[in-house]
């Protein structure tokens, strides 16, 4: 045979196809105890024999014949006219049907459909460990005979039976049994086969009491809502409280690395670049790794318990007035980690209009990329009170959800008008969540985040650093005058043989030493107001190093204003004037269109590139940055509120727009999403700025 053997994994939802796929290929795709986790055909590779085996993981389907996007994908992959991303289209050589040993009768319907395809088939009876625990035994020899193909018991979670399966895949042949083609005939056939091969050891019955009781509580109109609220609260509360310690650690490390660079490297552009471009940029992104990891870890655990399917029914009632159903719940919940898997998960929504509405509003959910911006801004707004920070944080999440729901109503009343389909969903059994799965998911998502920080975000930081450092311009006349004035005083002092009034801080070394005046706008800061203003107004004559520091600050500000970044920012800034952003924030907002988390690192580069705040952690440095007048903070409270609202609502993620266009079936939908979200964000931001007293 030329090329690898192509095997497609087909099966009912939630039978463990992805778990098996990950085991076989050593990959880690997302799995969970929720029907409809996989929504896309994915390819993996298993090293076996000479040419290896290529495995395609398909979305779970109850039947290949349904009018449903998952069935459609499976049909097309099996027919060979749809290729998983990164692969050529060709029909699979072997069909591997994954069935749940504990619900064989139902799974056999799909097995029957697969047998009728006249492709070599292997049937995997997965969850053999669970079946054993529950006292179910299967007569494999009889089942092989009845199906006319190889049947392998396996446990994907434990890794049992995989070697046998790999061999069976290579030896698979076209089954010599053809089940009936009609639905009735097929059902009867499946019943007969299942009844013939399944045995349960007497007395091993696990009563349905516990599942029944839990279901009654979790879907109860009152108790169910309370449980739901507790689960969601616990989820988000743990994310933010457990992440605190590692975040502080990382933040501290970044500060020390930056200080180390400043202390050890020779002065010059390279040192500035390393300390302000690289360390500040990456450090400000790394700080958020703990929260993002926790988010993925906890959502994975929660999904694996089997609770979410019940939660979906509880929330169904609440979503209905907004034109959505419980089917939209898991897509919207996972959008809190990232909108892209969220939008992918909308494929599980059977109604097309509802699905489109869910795609359109999913990015309103506060994804993990917004966390950095929220942390920065809530920290700046309420530096003293952790409780108020938390409240503002919750407010952001709530604002996103409310905006999503209201937008869904608007969409369902205008573009996507139509009846609502009532909800039906399989309720998976309750399970002890797999920590292994959760750790692996977290590890992968963390790695993706780090890779992004090490590549895209780093690249943006470098470009930005360059844009704000060049071109170098002539120092302003005012600064030159101040320098002359300072040297005149020094000369006069040495001429009259007096000790010049030199503070311990040498003016020339001011790039290394922290200048407290920049940290808290004190009287000195106020004195230095305005670029062109005359600065010496106090009674005491200014000391030379004061004059030099003023000159330096003027030069820096002027250089930044005239840099490429400054010019670009100032050109666009009028657009964001009503929201209270200066040109630096404008640059931050504009670069965020590539990815939101870039905002914090952009601000880190822009602020620390122009001012010295060594010895403080990076977020505090950003917060202390001042605007061109050298006095007003960049992040005034009103501007911070406005930014917060803007970031909750704005669509600032190119990859999400691409996925929207693909999933909704047209660039039109991505354009609507972009226009609607950014329009809302702009209006909301301006309103917040106004309400917070920005125009007072």
């Amino acid at each position, binding site marked *: 045979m030329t090329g690898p053997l192509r095997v497609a994994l087909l099966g009912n939802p939630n039978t463990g196809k992805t778990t098996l796929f990950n085991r076989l290929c050593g990959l880690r795709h997302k799995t969970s105890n929720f029907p409809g986790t996989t929504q896309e055909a994915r390819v993996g590779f298993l090293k076996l024999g000479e040419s290896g085996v290529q495995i395609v993981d398909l979305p779970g389907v109850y039947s290949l014949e349904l009018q449903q996007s998952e069935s459609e994908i499976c049909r097309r992959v099996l027919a060979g006219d749809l290729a998983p991303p990164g692969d050529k289209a060709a029909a699979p050589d072997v069909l591997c049907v994954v069935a749940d040993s504990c619900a064989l009768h139902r799974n056999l319907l799909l097995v029957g459909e697969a047998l009728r395809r006249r492709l070599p088939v292997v049937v995997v009876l997965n969850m053999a460990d669970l079946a054993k625990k529950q006292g179910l035994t299967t007569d494999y020899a009889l089942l092989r005979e009845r199906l006319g193909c190889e049947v392998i018991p396996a446990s994907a979670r434990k890794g049992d039976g995989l070697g046998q399966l790999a061999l069976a895949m290579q030896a698979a042949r076209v089954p010599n049994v053809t089940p009936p083609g009609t639905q009735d005939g097929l059902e009867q056939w499946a019943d007969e086969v299942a*009844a013939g091969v399944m045995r349960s050891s007497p007395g091993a019955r696990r009563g349905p009491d516990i599942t029944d009781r839990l279901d009654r509580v979790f879907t109860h109109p009152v108790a169910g809502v309370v449980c739901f609220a507790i689960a969601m609260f616990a989820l988000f509360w743990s994310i933010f409280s457990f992440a605190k310690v590692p975040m502080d650690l990382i933040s501290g490390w970044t500060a020390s690395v930056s200080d180390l660079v400043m202390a050890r490297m020779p002065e010059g552009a390279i040192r500035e670049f390393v300390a302000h471009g690289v360390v500040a940029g990456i450090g400000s992104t790394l700080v958020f790794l703990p929260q993002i990891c926790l988010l993925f870890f906890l959502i994975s655990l929660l999904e694996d318990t089997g609770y979410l399917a019940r939660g979906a029914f509880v929330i169904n009632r609440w979503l209905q007035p907004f034109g959505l159903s419980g089917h939209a719940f898991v897509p919207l919940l996972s959008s809190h980690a990232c909108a892209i898997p969220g939008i992918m998960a909308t494929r599980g929504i059977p109604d097309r209009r509802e699905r489109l509405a869910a795609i359109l509003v999913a990015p309103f959910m506060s994804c993990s990329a917004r966390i950095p911006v929220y942390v920065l801004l809530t920290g700046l707004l309420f530096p003293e009170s952790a409780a108020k920070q938390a409240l503002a944080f919750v407010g952001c999440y709530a604002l996103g959800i409310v905006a999503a729901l209201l937008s869904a109503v608007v969409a369902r009343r205008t573009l996507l008008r139509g009846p609502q389909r009532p909800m039906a969903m399989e309720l998976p059994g309750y399970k002890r969540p797999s920590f292994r799965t959760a750790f692996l998911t977290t590890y992968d998502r963390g790695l993706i985040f780090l890779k992004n920080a090490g590549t895209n975000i780093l690249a943006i930081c470098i470009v930005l650093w360059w844009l704000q450092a060049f071109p170098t311009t002539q120092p302003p006349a005012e600064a030159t005058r101040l320098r002359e004035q300072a040297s005149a005083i020094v000369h006069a002092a040495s001429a009259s043989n007096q000790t010049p009034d030199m503070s311990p801080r040498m003016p020339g070394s001011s790039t290394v030493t922290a200048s407290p005046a920049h940290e808290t706008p004190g009287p000195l800061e106020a004195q230095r107001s305005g670029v062109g203003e005359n600065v010496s107004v106090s009674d005491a004559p200014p000391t030379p190093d004061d004059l030099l520091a003023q000159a330096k600050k003027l030069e820096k500000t002027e250089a930044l204003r005239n840099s490429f970044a400054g010019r670009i920012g100032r050109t666009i800034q009028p657009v964001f004037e009503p929201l209270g952003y200066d040109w630096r924030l404008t640059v931050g907002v504009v670069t965020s269109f590539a990815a939101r988390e870039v905002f914090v690192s952009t601000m880190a580069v822009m602020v620390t590139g122009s001012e010295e705040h060594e010895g403080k952690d990076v977020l505090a440095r950003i917060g202390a940055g001042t605007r061109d007048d050298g006095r007003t903070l960049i992040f005034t409270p009103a501007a911070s509120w406005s930014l917060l609202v803007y970031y909750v609502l704005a669509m600032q993620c190119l990859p999400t727009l691409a996925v929207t266009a693909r999933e909704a079936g047209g660039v039109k939908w991505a354009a609507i999403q972009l226009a609607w979200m950014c329009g809302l964000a702009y209006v909301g931001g301006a309103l917040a700025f106004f309400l917070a007293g920005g125009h007072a």
Partner: protein
Amino acid sequence: MTEPIATRRCGKPGCTGHANGVPLTSLAPGALARVCETCLDPLDASMLRAMGLRPAATLRLCRSGEPCVVEVYPGSAGQGTQCERADCRCRIGLARLLAERVMVTPIDEAAIAGAGGSEATK
């Protein structure tokens, strides 16, 4: 089955009554029943059928209300092909709107008690 047809209406707007069965929602929790027919849109019907809720399927109502939770047993009860074990079946949550359009006939538990389906007495 002596009730008049008119009282055997499903939840479908304008339903004039069914010859067989009662709506699933009219059962008490814990009751066993067999599906007679479903009165659903073709899309919903084919979906539920693929999930196992098909004519002649045996089911147990675990919770009624919004949502209804049913447990579908394999095979048809009392016909010798059943697999009446606690773990050989699947659980489906149904919006009330769907559940009231599924017509079922209650099953006399005693008839299948010998086959091991007695947990319905809970």
